[in-house]
């Protein structure tokens, strides 16, 4: 991370960006999301929809990480890359464990809506 801080405009994080990278990230990310939108509008089977959305999610986020944020193994960026890699499992655990725990709880504790509606009649 060493640099001459008396010349802030020469800092590696200032100099790393390029127009090609930013335009590329925007176009690729936009196309990935448009692909997901297009497939979702055709109302495909659930498995196909999930697969499409996951591919779009991965492409979009990876492209943004590499081209927008400029994350790589360089001396200037490596600790940001490491921090993201260590935080992503926390995202997955937070969402995955919560959904798993509550879906299991829901199945065992919540009444079936169809039974409730038949009781109301």
């Amino acid at each position, binding site marked *: *991370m*060493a*640099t001459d*801080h*008396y010349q*802030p*405009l020469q*800092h*590696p*994080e*200032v*100099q790393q*960006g*390029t*127009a090609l990278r*930013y*335009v590329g990230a*925007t176009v690729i*990310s*936009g196309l990935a*999301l*448009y692909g*997901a*939108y297009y497939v*979702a*509008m055709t109302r495909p089977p659930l498995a196909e*929809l*999930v697969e499409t*959305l996951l591919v*779009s*999610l991965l492409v*979009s*986020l990876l492209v*943004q*990480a590499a081209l*927008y*944020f400029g994350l790589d193994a360089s001396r*200037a960026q490596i*600790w*940001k890359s490491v*921090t*993201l890699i260590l*935080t992503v499992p*926390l*995202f997955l655990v*937070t*969402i995955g464990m*919560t*959904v798993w725990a*509550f*879906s299991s709880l*829901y199945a065992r504790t*919540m009444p079936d*809506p169809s039974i409730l509606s038949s009781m109301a009649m």
Partner: protein
Amino acid sequence: MAHETMTADAAVRLWNAEADEHDPISARTYGFWLYLMSDGLIFASLIAAYAVLDNKMSAFGHPMADTLLSASQGFVQTLVLLGAVLALSLGTLGLKTGARGGLALGLAVSAALGTVFVAQGLAGLDAMAAAGNGPTASAYLSCLFVLLFTHGLHLAIGVLWSLVMLVQIFRFGFTQDVVGRLLNLRLYTQFQAAVWVVVYLYVYLFGGAH
């Protein structure tokens, strides 16, 4: 043979013998990056809560994403947000040459597009509430409103921040503090686009928005 091995070993540097000089800009952007990671965990918690409440029982007879949200309108919002991020990112390229005009233009366009994104989001939430599907109608709607509003609030703060930086680059110039703030603003805005990708794909498209 032994001599060759020693020579090869001597060429390998396993660590930097001298301490790095203090680098305030890198320290600031790394600290801000840590904040963004914790901000991401807030969104992860909101998305987890949304996933738990995304069922008819929690909707309490009220409509859900498939009837409340428009995928095409969401995609327009996506393009607007990506445009805001692109404008700001391209604007910060002006830092490389010290071009204030390009940077100011990027900040202004980004702030304008960010305002459009927030206005679109608020209009959508307002229409839902006016139709009787406000945040107090059901647990599902509470979570949907909080998730979308939290992201919109982040964007609104980004717009405000852009306007403040627009003033600062002309008032203070490209000082170390101003450059550090601009780099953090770029990180912040780009991060909001990454969060929106997750929100759009999961809440809108997986939720079956029409």
